[in-house]
C-alpha cells in the first residue's frame, strides 16, 4: 500500500463525488442530463473538450509509441486540421440545430429514424469498446499509484465515475473534466520538472536520444516509410473531426459564439498539454528504455524511477484523471445512444408512445449504470495495448460518420439514402478490415481500417447523391438558412442563436 497515493487518489475521488452530488441538484429533465441545460461558457467548454479527448491511452500508449518511433508520431497536425474543420464547418450548425447526440443530427438532417438508430448502434459499439479500454487503463494506473490490487482499484474507480455521471449527467461530466484537467496539467508539469535536469532540457534530450537512436528526431523518425507516416496522420485527422465526445460538446454551449470560441481556445490548450509527451518520450528512450518490457510501460516506469512518492502519485493521478475524464464522456455517449436515440427517438416516438421527462431521466440513469457495469466486466478481460482497441473504435466511427457529418453540413444536395448507404459502407469497410487484421492477414498491414472504410463511404455518398433527391426544403433550412436568426420557430424550439 502506498499511503501518499491513497490519500491523493482519495482526495481526487472525493472531489468527483462532490461534483456529482452538486450537479444532481440541477437534473430536472433530459436536456439537463444529456446537454447540461446548454449553459456552458467558452473556457469551461474548451477545457472539457480537451480533457474528454485526451485519454489515458494518449499518454501511456502515445509516449511508448513516440519513444519507439520518434516524436512525429504525435498528431499535432491532425488535431489542428481536425479542430479547424469542426470550427469552420460544424460548430455553428450543430449548435443551432441543438440536438442531444450525434445520431440526433443524422436523424434530423437526413429525415431518417432508421439512420438515427443505425448511428446510435455504431456509437454504442464504439463508445463501449473505448470505454472498456479506458476503464482498464484507469485501473492499472490506480493500482500503480495506490498499491491497491488491480481488481479493487478498478471496481472503486469505476463505481465513482459511474456514480457522478449517473447522478449529474453532462453537467457533472464537464465540471469533473475541469478538475481532472487540473490534475492532468499538474501531473505532466511535475514529471517534466523531475526529468528536466537528468535530460539536460529539451535540447539535451534530443542530443542524448540521437546518441542511442540516430534519426529519432527526424521528420520520419525510426522505421517509418513516407506512406505509413502520411496515412497515420490522415487516420487521426479523420478520427479527430469525427470524435463524438468532441462534436457533441457543441450542443452544450450556451450559444453559437460560445461553441465557436470553445473550439478555437481548445486547440492551443490541447497543444500545450500534449506536447509535454515529446519530452517524456525522449526521456523514456534515454532513461528507462532498456528496463521496460513493452513500450506502454515506459511512462509509468519513468514516473516510478524519477519522482519521489508524493509527486509520482500526483503524476499518476494526472494519468488516472485523463482516463476518467474520457470515460465519463464515453459513458454519456453510449447511454444517450441507448436511452435517447434507440428507446425514445427510434422506438417510442414513431409508435406514438408518450412518456414523461421523469421517466426518460430515470431510463437515462439506469442505462448509464448498465453501460458502466459492462465496462467493468470488459475491463477485466481486454488486450494489453489499449491504443490498438481505441484505434478500432475510432475507425468505426470515423469511417461511418465522417462523410454524412461533414458533407451533410457543406452540401445541400446530399440525400438521405446516400448518407445512410455511405455510413453503412464506411462501417462495413472498416469493420471487415479490422476483423481481417485481428485474424492476422498480412495484406491488412497496408493501411489502417479507417482508410478502406472512409474511401468506400466517400465513393458511395457521391454516387448515390447524384441519382437521388435531396431532403425537404424545410429540413435544409434548419442547416443552411442564410439568416439563422429566423430559425427560432415552434417547429425547432431548441434553436438559440
Amino acid at each position, binding site marked *: 500500500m502506498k499511503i501518499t497515493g491513497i490519500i491523493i487518489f482519495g482526495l481526487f475521488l472525493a472531489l468527483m463525488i462532490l461534483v456529482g452530488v452538486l450537479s444532481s441538484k440541477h437534473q430536472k429533465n433530459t436536456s439537463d442530463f444529456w446537454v447540461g441545460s446548454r449553459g456552458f461558457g467558452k473556457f469551461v467548454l474548451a477545457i472539457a473538450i480537451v480533457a474528454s479527448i485526451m485519454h489515458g491511452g494518449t499518454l501511456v500508449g502515445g509516449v511508448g509509441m513516440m519513444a519507439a518511433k520518434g*516524436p*512525429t508520431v*504525435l498528431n*499535432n*497536425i491532425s*488535431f*489542428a*486540421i481536425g*479542430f*479547424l474543420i469542426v*470550427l*469552420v464547418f460544424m460548430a*455553428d450548425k450543430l449548435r443551432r440545430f441543438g440536438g442531444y447526440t450525434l445520431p440526433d443530427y443524422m436523424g434530423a438532417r437526413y429525415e431518417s429514424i432508421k439512420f438515427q438508430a443505425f448511428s446510435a448502434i455504431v456509437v454504442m459499439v464504439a463508445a463501449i469498446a473505448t470505454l472498456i479500454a479506458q476503464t482498464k487503463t484507469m485501473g492499472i494506473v490506480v493500482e500503480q499509484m495506490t498499491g491497491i490490487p488491480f481488481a479493487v482499484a478498478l471496481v472503486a474507480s469505476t463505481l465513482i465515475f459511474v456514480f457522478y455521471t449517473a447522478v449529474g449527467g453532462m453537467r457533472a461530466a464537464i465540471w469533473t473534466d475541469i478538475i481532472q484537467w487540473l490534475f492532468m496539467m499538474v501531473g505532466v508539469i511535475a514529471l517534466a520538472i523531475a526529468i528536466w535536469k537528468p535530460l539536460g532540457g*529539451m*535540447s*539535451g*534530450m*534530443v*542530443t542524448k536520444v540521437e546518441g542511442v537512436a540516430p534519426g529519432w*528526431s*527526424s*521528420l520520419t523518425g525510426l522505421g517509418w516509410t513516407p506512406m505509413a507516416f502520411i496515412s497515420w496522420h490522415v487516420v487521426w485527422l479523420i478520427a479527430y473531426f469525427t470524435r463524438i465526445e468532441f462534436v457533441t460538446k457543441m450542443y452544450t454551449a450556451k450559444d*453559437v*459564439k460560445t461553441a*465557436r*470560441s470553445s*473550439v*478555437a*481556445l481548445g*486547440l*492551443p490548450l490541447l*497543444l500545450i498539454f500534449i*506536447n509535454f509527451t*515529446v519530452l517524456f518520450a525522449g526521456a523514456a528512450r534515454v532513461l528507462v528504455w532498456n528496463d521496460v518490457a513493452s513500450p506502454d510501460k515506459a511512462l509509468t516506469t519513468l514516473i516510478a524511477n524519477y519522482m519521489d512518492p508524493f509527486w509520482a502519485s500526483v503524476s499518476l493521478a494526472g494519468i488516472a484523471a485523463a482516463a476518467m475524464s474520457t470515460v465519463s464522456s464515453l459513458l454519456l455517449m453510449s447511454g444517450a445512444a441507448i436511452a435517447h436515440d434507440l428507446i425514445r427517438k427510434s422506438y417510442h416516438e414513431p409508435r406514438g408512445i408518450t412518456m414523461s421527462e421523469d421517466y426518460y431521466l430515470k431510463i437515462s440513469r439506469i442505462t448509464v449504470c448498465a453501460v458502466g457495469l459492462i465496462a467493468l466486466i470488459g475491463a477485466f478481460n481486454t488486450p494489453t495495448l489499449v491504443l490498438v482497441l481505441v484505434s478500432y473504435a475510432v475507425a468505426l466511427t470515423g469511417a461511418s460518420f465522417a462523410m454524412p457529418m461533414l458533407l451533410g453540413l457543406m452540401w445541400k444536395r446530399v440525400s438521405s439514402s446516400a448518407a445512410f448507404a455511405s455510413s453503412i459502407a464506411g462501417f462495413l469497410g472498416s469493420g471487415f478490415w479490422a476483423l481481417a487484421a485481428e485474424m492476422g492477414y498480412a495484406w491488412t498491414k497496408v493501411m489502417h481500417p479507417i482508410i478502406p472504410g472512409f474511401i468506400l463511404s466517400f465513393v458511395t455518398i457521391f454516387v448515390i447523391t447524384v441519382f437521388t433527391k435531396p431532403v425537404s426544403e424545410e429540413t435544409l433550412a434548419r442547416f443552411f438558412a442564410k439568416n439563422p436568426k429566423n430559425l427560432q420557430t415552434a417547429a425547432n424550439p431548441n434553436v438559440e442563436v
Partner: protein
Amino acid sequence: MFGFPISTSLFLWILPLLIAVYMLYYTAKKNKNDEN
C-alpha cells in the same frame, strides 16, 4: 527548434501553431460579425 531538425519543428509545432492562430482570428472575426 529545441534541438530538433527544422523539418520536424515545422511539421510538429510551427504549422499547428499557425492553424491555431488562424482559428483565433477566424473566431474573433465571425463573433464580431454576429454582433453587428
